[in-house]
């Protein structure tokens, strides 16, 4: 299974991928994570890919995405070549103005808006992680939540829990 | 105090510190490097450093060849880099006394960057720079210490570049001990080198050495005694600073201890930090 987190620098994409990778590793799977970002720490195209399997991947980089998450318009078109009819594309409804359309499923969900309502747009990535968990059903939600708590600062724990729950609910209400 | 000095001086035999099977040495007749080497080994002797604990690291050039003659742990490294090797050696083995022998080209041209950072870091190394104002080993090319107007094989019409004040450079870069001496003052040189070795931190000593065979001949500076005396009379011993007024040799370079400051030694500072980290771990 191949999952890409994409958007612009500073959106916590690499962290989201690392959290998911940790949860999957805990569940006994083997993960390869590769990142690409432009040499600026804020803004600029940023992405992190997970190639997930039972053992070491033959080729550790993404070839055909099962899930593509797009959190910013900067990343709207760059991954289109890796999509197949089986792909699921999750876009931020607010920040992605031209979501990819094609023979695959595209869902635009209010990640940023939800995070803002919870009080901090910086947890947009955690909301998205919740929705992704529900839609892609790759890992039990409680395992992912444990990884979030383990990999993020304690002072954000309550906010992250709320964000993850909101994302999960959002993902579950959409048809899988 | 005076008696002790006389006694230890009497008991010093340079042959105890030389690899006899490497003799005769390769230095030209009249070269000042031999005097500098003798003064250095005398200072080592007076400091009571066991030969097994002495590590001498040298670079490339005439000065670089001296390490091979010393009966100690000796390392003849690459051009300009002896301070980098010495930094690794001293950090890995703080139990060793590390002395670097380098030349004006080795230390100030190709190795200039390493010198200023070694001064800044203040690791307990003694750096002895033998300044003979020329690249002797390669046949007499201009160096960063060649005086303006001097003739070398690469300045056939006379040197048009200014030279460094190596001691001012070292002091500005943060060396906690800086000194300069001429080969004509061998006792003063021995004393200065002893103070440098005893100093805890980075010490830099410039020895004004004499290349008679190449530099001297090329510039009509006379034989070794003339060159040594000329240099001696051009100096202004630092000890005179309070007794002799400024008009006395106003442009002369100063000799003696020029800078001595008390600054944390790098190796000790690193080890203290590492120990703190280990304690926090446990």
């Amino acid at each position: 299974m191949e999952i890409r987190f994409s958007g612009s620098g500073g959106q916590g994409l690499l962290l989201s991928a690392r959290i998911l990778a940790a949860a999957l590793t805990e569940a006994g799977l083997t993960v390869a994570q590769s990142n690409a970002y432009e040499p600026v720490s804020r803004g600029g195209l940023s992405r992190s890919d997970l190639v997930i399997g039972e053992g070491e991947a033959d080729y550790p980089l993404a070839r055909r995405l099962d899930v593509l998450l797009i959190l910013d318009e900067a990343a709207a078109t760059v991954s289109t070549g890796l999509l197949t009819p089986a792909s699921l594309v999750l876009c931020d409804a607010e920040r992605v103005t031209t979501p990819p359309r094609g023979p695959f499923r595209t869902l635009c969900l209010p990640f940023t808006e939800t995070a803002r309502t919870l009080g901090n747009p910086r947890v947009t990535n955690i909301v998205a992680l919740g929705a992704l968990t529900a839609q892609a059903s790759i890992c039990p939600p409680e395992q992912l939540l444990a990884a979030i708590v383990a990999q993020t600062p304690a002072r954000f724990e309550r906010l992250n829990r709320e964000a993850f729950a909101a994302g999960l609910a959002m993902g579950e209400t959409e048809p899988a | 105090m005076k008696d002790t000095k006389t006694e230890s001086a009497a008991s010093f035999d340079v042959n105890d510190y030389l690899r006899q099977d490497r003799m005769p040495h390769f230095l030209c007749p009249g070269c000042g490097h031999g005097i500098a080497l003798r003064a250095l080994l005398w200072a080592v002797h007076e400091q009571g450093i066991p030969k097994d604990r002495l590590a001498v690291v040298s670079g490339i050039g005439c000065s670089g060849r001296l390490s091979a003659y010393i009966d100690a742990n000796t390392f003849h490294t690459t051009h300009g880099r002896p301070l980098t090797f010495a930094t690794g050696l001293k950090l890995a083995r703080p139990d060793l006394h590390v002395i670097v022998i380098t030349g004006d080209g080795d230390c100030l041209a190709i190795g200039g960057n390493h010198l200023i950072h070694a001064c800044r870091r203040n690791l307990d190394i003694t750096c002895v720079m033998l300044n003979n104002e020329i690249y002797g080993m390669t046949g007499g090319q201009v160096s960063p210490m060649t005086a303006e107007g001097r003739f070398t094989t690469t300045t056939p019409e006379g040197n048009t570049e200014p030279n460094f004040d190596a001691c001012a450079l070292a002091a500005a870069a943060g060396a906690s001990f800086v000194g300069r001496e001429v080969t004509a003052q061998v006792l003063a040189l021995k004393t200065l080198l002893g103070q440098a070795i005893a100093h805890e931190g980075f010490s830099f000593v410039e020895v004004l050495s004499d290349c008679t065979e190449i530099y001297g001949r090329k510039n009509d500076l006379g034989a070794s005694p003339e060159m040594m005396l000329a240099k001696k009379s051009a100096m202004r011993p630092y000890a005179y600073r309070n007794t002799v007024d400024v008009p006395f040799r106003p442009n002369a370079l100063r000799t003696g201890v020029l800078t001595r400051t008390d600054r944390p030694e790098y190796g000790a500072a690193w080890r203290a930090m590492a120990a703190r980290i280990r304690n926090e771990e446990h």
Partner: protein
Amino acid sequence: MTAPSLAAAPPALTGRRNLEGNEACALGAIRAGCRFFAGYPITPSSEVAETMARELPKVGGTFIQMEDEIASMGAVIGASMGGVTAMTATSGPGFSLKQENLGYACGAEIPCVIVNVMRGGPSTGMPTRPAQGDILQARWGTHGDHAVIVLAPASVGEAYSETIRAVELSETLRVPVVVLLDEVIGHLTETVDLGAVPETPGIARPFATGPREGFLPYAETADLVPPMPRPGDGYRSHCTGLTHGPDGFPTQNPAVAAAALTRTTDKLVLHRARIESWREQATEDADLLIVAIGISARAARQAVKDLRAEGLKVGLFRPVTLWPFPETPLREAVAAAGTRKVLVPEMNQGQLVLEVERVLAGRAEVAGLSRIDGETLTPDEIAGAAREALK
């Protein structure tokens, strides 16, 4: 102050962990006994230095960021001359700067490990993009004839285990060892089972023991690895980058010089069985054999599976020890399978392919596949080239 006690053992690294390739190099080195690191910041290898800066103090080791790449190589050799296992890490431009001192380590037989994480070049090139352009620099970068070992991990697990092997080979054979990663492997995070890496038996440098009188630091021993005198142990020997005889002092005696230089290369021939390492995948009946390292080998591994699924007889020969090149194993693999064609995909304009051509010398038709745009060779590209070659 006494000679360093290196008793502080690192906490055992066990279990499954997600590690980055560069981090794995650093942790592997520490596990193998590396207690000194000197480096200089350079993309994409800085994480090796950052991990060392964090971890070495915990095990009684020393980390120092030097003023430049040359200085960090000098400091590593200096520490090693002091008897402490030492490593540095860099990328192409820094690797070039280290070459002179690396040659000193070759000539004076000072153990040291150099990690080179390859990026796009020449010059500053594409610092964040992957390439495999240092394959020949790693072998021939320093001046003069010399022997050197180069290991080429193709996964994070191998970055860990091969760095351990690099330390072991370097220490026991007194030869510099280069760990050659590409940017993809250096920055890739993979799940690694550290417990699965076997304990390495005795990574111990041969230090001189016995009589001080008449000691020859470069004596020709049966295993061609002269025991190294440790400062403070009473040998008071000389070490130089000048060509030297068994006594360690410079020589221009033709017979002594030739014998001394030949021994350092013969040493690697004598210990070839320990040094050589390679992996084969579906080679037994391969009409076409792919030879690749690093991320190109991972792409080839996928391509072989895809092509086999199509019924094409394609295999992969992956040198893990890149230099000395495992030439006999490659010849044997080609001979055993009756391989007709060999494809060498690499992220440069054709370096590894030169060695494969030399080794096979007409035994099979050899073709290269290059990519130099800062992107990796993909399984589909390699499969396409293989299909074309088999037509």
